[in-house]
């Protein structure tokens, strides 16, 4: 039921408190960083006031990132072998993907894109359910309501509006649900991204926009998408806080995302976060990055790897012991094995199901087409038997 008399609008322009309204913080020019690429804790201004997450949190992030990386590598391999139709890899983006999922509570929702399969996996969806889309069994393999994960969106930026709508519905009902939506750098140029930022700010929706700036939209570099200093800067125009974060620093990503999630939950409205990262692999298996970027750029970013630095930090701090590292590696291998097994099974697809979910209400015309296909299948089967 809806909360009665709930003020949907944050009507600061007309309210007496307009002048007293807090200005959103301007994003920093350099990315917020808590653990640098050498694995050293960052002190001073680059923290932007964010504290390093606890060792427990960092170890959990590390474990999930290692598992996600292994899964990603495995799925790319299976795709090259022809087991999947396509796979957009998130290799190198694990700090963004996993920190986002780890920052959320069970009641919160995520709105992933095709890029964010490891986030879906890390929230508990099985490899077979996660990969149904890319293997081509069906457009979606998991129950969104059960995991509170929207179907992975392909039409760019469209899912951001769904996140704003869902978060607003939760707010209207008086629930403490937060929605986090992933976006790519290229997707920020879409009209729906603008509309989502604006609706969220006007409605003060409990939403976190996470722009993973992996620096390319297929082949097109960031400079051809925006003239803004950072994507985070765009937040200011909408009247919401923006944070420019080192997207390969899981500590910083977790600190910023989780504080934004909790601020949203407490009624503080939306946040736009940019994680500066790099798409290490091709856009998908059918892309050829040699046509638009060079090896030295790729090498530079491989050195900034999000797993490496966390591993160095945790090892030096004595948190990641050889025994724990070996446990994590076992877990990753077990998942890789399970993924291979799941993808070697022939998917159970039923052509007659094509007609079953188009509408809730029965349609005579579709039943006719279903019957037609059924007859055709029966005839083909009879033909192949004789």
């Amino acid at each position: 039921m809806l909360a009665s008399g709930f003020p949907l609008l944050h009507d600061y322009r007309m309210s007496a408190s307009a002048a007293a309204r807090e200005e959103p913080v301007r994003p920093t020019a350099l990315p917020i960083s808590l653990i640098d690429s050498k694995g050293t804790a960052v002190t001073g201004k680059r923290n932007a006031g964010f504290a390093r997450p606890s060792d427990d949190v960092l170890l959990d992030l590390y474990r999930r990132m290692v598992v996600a990386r292994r899964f990603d590598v495995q799925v790319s391999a299976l795709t090259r072998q022809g087991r999947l139709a396509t796979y957009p890899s998130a290799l190198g983006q694990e700090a963004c993907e996993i920190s986002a999922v780890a920052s959320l509570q069970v009641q919160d929702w995520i709105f992933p894109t095709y890029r964010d399969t490891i986030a879906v996996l890390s929230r508990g969806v099985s490899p077979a359910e996660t990969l149904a889309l890319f293997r081509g069994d069906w457009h979606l393999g998991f129950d969104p309501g059960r995991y509170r994960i929207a179907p992975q969106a392909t039409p760019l930026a469209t899912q951001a509006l769904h996140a704003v709508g869902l978060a607003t519905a939760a707010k209207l009902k008086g629930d403490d649900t937060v929605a986090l939506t992933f976006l790519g750098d290229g997707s920020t140029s879409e009209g729906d991204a603008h509309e989502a930022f604006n609706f969220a700010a006007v409605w003060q929706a409990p939403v976190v926009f996470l722009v993973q700036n992996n620096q390319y939209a297929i082949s097109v570099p960031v400079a051809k998408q925006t003239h803004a200093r950072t994507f985070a800067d765009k937040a200011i125009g909408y009247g919401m806080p923006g944070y420019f974060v080192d997207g390969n620093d899981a500590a910083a990503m977790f600190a910023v995302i989780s504080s934004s999630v909790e601020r949203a939950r407490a009624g503080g409205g939306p946040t736009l976060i940019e994680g500066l990262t790099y798409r290490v692999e091709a856009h998908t298996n059918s892309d050829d990055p040699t046509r638009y970027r060079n090896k030295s750029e790729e090498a530079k970013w491989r050195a900034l790897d999000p797993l490496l630095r966390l591993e160095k930090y945790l090892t030096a701090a004595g948190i990641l012991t050889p025994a724990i590292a070996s446990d994590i590696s076992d877990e990753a291998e077990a998942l890789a094995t399970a993924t291979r097994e799941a993808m070697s099974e022939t998917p159970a697809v039923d052509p007659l199901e094509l007609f079953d979910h188009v509408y809730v209400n029965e349609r005579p015309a579709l039943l006719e087409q279903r019957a037609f296909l059924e007859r055709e299948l029966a005839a083909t089967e009879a033909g192949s038997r004789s």
Partner: protein
Amino acid sequence: MTILENRATTKVVVPAPAQVTMAGALTAALRDSMADDPRVVVFGEDVGPLGGVFRVTDGLSKEFGESRIWDSPLAESGIVGTAIGMAMYGLRPVVEMQFDAFSYPAFEQITSHLAKMHNRSRGLVTLPIVIRIPYAGGIGGVEHHSDSSEAYWTHTPGLTVVTPSNPADAYSMLREAIASDDPVIFLEPKSRYWSKDAIELPVTTPPMTKGLVLREGTDVTLLAYGPTVKTALQAADLATAEGLSIEVIDLRSLSPFDDETVGESVRKTSRAAIIHEASQFGGYGAEVAARVTERQFFHLAAPILRITGFDIPFPSPKLEEYHLPTAERVLAALDTWEW
């Protein structure tokens, strides 16, 4: 009936049951749906205190407050996109596109998400959303205010597309659309907003997916919907004088198409024609003509005719009368048949 009269607190002027406009009937349907189901929320451009540019949401903002009906930012994709998210969380949004042609910014959200979500989620996610779209011409609207875009929506699997032609249907069909678990494109013929009928509300007319024989006849089946139903009835009147008996069917639902009602009539009359304002090429009438021909070919004495707008962008106000199908044009078309 009493439901409307009981709401003494509102200042909505719904004419006494004797005379209800289509706009008033739509307002009443929205109000009754909102009163019956707290999950129903209404938002869009100017639907709040103003009551919408056609006043269809008149008084609802005052009656239900801002948690149930509100003015959204001005962005159609945003309106439909956020409605989808709300429906995923259990609300039943009814959103308004201010005019037909201004629904186009929402095209991607409607065709790629709204229409497909139930299918892609194998039935796990339902999107009970109604998109109300004032459509078609005849009101002297300037550019972009008179489009008939029904074929865009009927071509999209996953959508239900309906359009009432009179106040009673407007009330009953909108209530049914809001109660439906499938997304519904609800096309409101603007030229009929101020048409009146003596009806009592609430009223329940036959299911919105059924076509209705409005007038029986023996020689021709004339199919119409929304704004052209009136034209069809006028044509039937004129034809009587010429000794021609026209059966008029109000399709009401464009998707699904009521094959049964139309087929039964065509088998009786053996001739059929369809009228719509939208341009002809690739238009809704093409589907109807093909479909009815495929199913009733051996009952047909003549090819199915389409009396439609020309294949031109909708004209300016001073020229729209030349574009819109008239009763005379219908009769002239029927004359081209060999009898």
